[in-house]
C-alpha cells in the first residue's frame, strides 16, 4: 500500500519513531518539572530564577540545540539520544512554569482544610495539591506535546529518522507527495497526543465531568 507515492509501512515506521522521540521526553520532562515546579512554589525566592532559567532554555532554536548537545553529551551527531535530551529540555522549559503556576492556583482554603484534617505536607501535596493542579498542568502538557511533535521533525536535518525524514526526502527528489504525507502524519500525531492527554485528564479529574 502506498500513500501519495510513499510506502505506508515506511510512514508507520517513521511515525512510530516520531511518537517515541516526542512522547518519551514529554513524560520525562513532566516527571522532572513536577519537583522543580513544587520547589519554585515552596521557596518563593526560587520562583523567578527557576522559571526564568528554564524559560531561557526554550529560546534556543531547535537545530542549534540538536547540534550543540553532542558536544556536551559526548554522543555522535546522528544519535537519537540528542533529540530525546533536547525535547526533554524543551518540555521542562515549558512545564516548570506551568506546574508552579498550577500549584499556586490551588485555593488557599482548600490547602488549609487539608492541613486541618491532619494531612502532612507530603500527603497534602500528593492527595490535594497535585490532583487539583491537574487541569492547568494538562493544558501546559497539551501545548508541550504539540510543540514537541513539530520540533522533532527538524531533527531530520541532522539525520535522525522520523516523519521529518519525509520532508528532506521529498525536497531532495523535488516531490511534493512525501512532504504532504509527513505534514499530515505530524498533525495526526499531534491530535493523537492531544486526545490521550484529554482522556487521561478526564480520568484523573472525575469531579470535572459533571461540571462541564
Amino acid at each position, binding site marked *: 500500500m502506498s500513500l501519495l507515492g510513499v510506502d505506508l509501512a515506511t510512514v508507520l515506521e517513521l511515525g512510530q519513531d516520531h511518537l517515541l522521540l516526542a512522547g518519551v521526553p514529554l513524560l520525562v520532562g513532566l516527571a522532572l518539572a513536577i519537583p522543580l515546579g513544587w520547589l519554585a512554589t515552596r521557596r518563593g525566592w526560587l520562583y523567578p530564577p527557576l522559571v526564568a532559567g528554564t524559560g531561557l532554555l526554550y529560546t534556543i532554536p531547535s537545530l542549534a540545540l540538536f547540534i550543540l548537545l553532542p558536544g556536551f553529551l559526548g554522543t555522535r551527531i546522528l544519535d537519537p539520544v540528542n533529540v530525546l535530551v533536547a525535547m526533554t529540555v524543551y518540555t521542562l522549559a515549558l512545564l516548570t512554569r506551568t506546574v508552579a503556576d498550577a500549584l499556586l*492556583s490551588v485555593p488557599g482554603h482548600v490547602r488549609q482544610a487539608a492541613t486541618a484534617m491532619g494531612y502532612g505536607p507530603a500527603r497534602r501535596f500528593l492527595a490535594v495539591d497535585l490532583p487539583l493542579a491537574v487541569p492547568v498542568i494538562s493544558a501546559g502538557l497539551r501545548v508541550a506535546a504539540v510543540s514537541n511533535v513539530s520540533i522533532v521533525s*527538524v531533527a531530520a536535518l541532522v539525520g535522525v529518522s522520523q516523519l521529518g525524514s519525509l520532508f528532506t526526502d521529498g525536497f531532495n527528489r523535488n516531490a*511534493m507527495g512525501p512532504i504532504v504525507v509527513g505534514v499530515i502524519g505530524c498533525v495526526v500525531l499531534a491530535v493523537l497526543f492531544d486526545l490521550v492527554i484529554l482522556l487521561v485528564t478526564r480520568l484523573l479529574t472525575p469531579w470535572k465531568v459533571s461540571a462541564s
Partner: protein
Amino acid sequence: MADVLAWLTDPANWSGQGGIPAQALAHLRYSVIALLLACLVAVPLGLYVGHTGRGRVVAVNIAGAFRAIPSLGVLFIAVLLLLPRLRGELAFEAPSIIVLVLLAVPPVLSGVYAGIEQVDPAARDAAHGMGMRPWQVLAQVEVPCALPLAIAGIRSGMLQIIATATIAAVVGLGGLGRFLIDGQAVRDYPQMAGGALLVAALALGTDLVLGLAQRAVVSPGLTGGTGLRARSATALDRRLARG
C-alpha cells in the same frame, strides 16, 4: 569544544561576505522584516478580535492548529511551490520569508487578542463612563493594559522566526544557519557547533532586547513596581508576591 572555540575566534571567520558579522546581520534583517510583516497582519486582527469579540473561536483554533504544523514541512512546500514561479535573487528569499511571516502570525495574534480580552471589564466600563469614544477606549485603556501579553506574543513569534530562519539555510537562505548547514555538508563539527552557539546567542540576545523594551513600555501601574518581577508580571506572579 576547543575546536569550536578555535573556529569562533579565528579572525578569518569574522570577515568578508560569508563571515560571522555579515551572516548575523542577514539573519537579524530577515527576522526583523518577517516580524514587522507578521505584526502588520496580526496586530490589527488581534485588536479587532479582542475588542469586538468577533471571530474569537476562529482565531483561537487557527492559532492552535498552526502550532501543530511542522515548520520544516511548510518551508519545503513553500519552496517547491514558489521557486519555479519566481525569478532573480528574490526567488531564494521570498518563499522562506513568507513562511517566517506565516509562522509568526499565530503567536502575535493570540497574544494581542488575549491581552485585549483579559482587560478588566471595570476599567473598560469606567472609560466608557468617562465619555471615551470606542476607539479612545481601545487606544488609551485596552491597548496599554494588553501590552504585557501582546509583547509576550511578539517575543514568542520572534523566537519562532529566528529558529525557522536558521532552518531555512537548508533551502538557501543566508544567515547564521549557513554555518550549521554548510558545516554539516563538509562534516566540519566545529563550524556547526560554533554556528549553533551564535544562533543561540542571537535568539537569547533578541529576546533580552524585546524583554527590556517590554519593561520600558509597559505601565508600572500594571506590573506593580519595578525589578525582576515587572518583566513577567501576571496575576499569578502577584499572588505569589503576596504569599
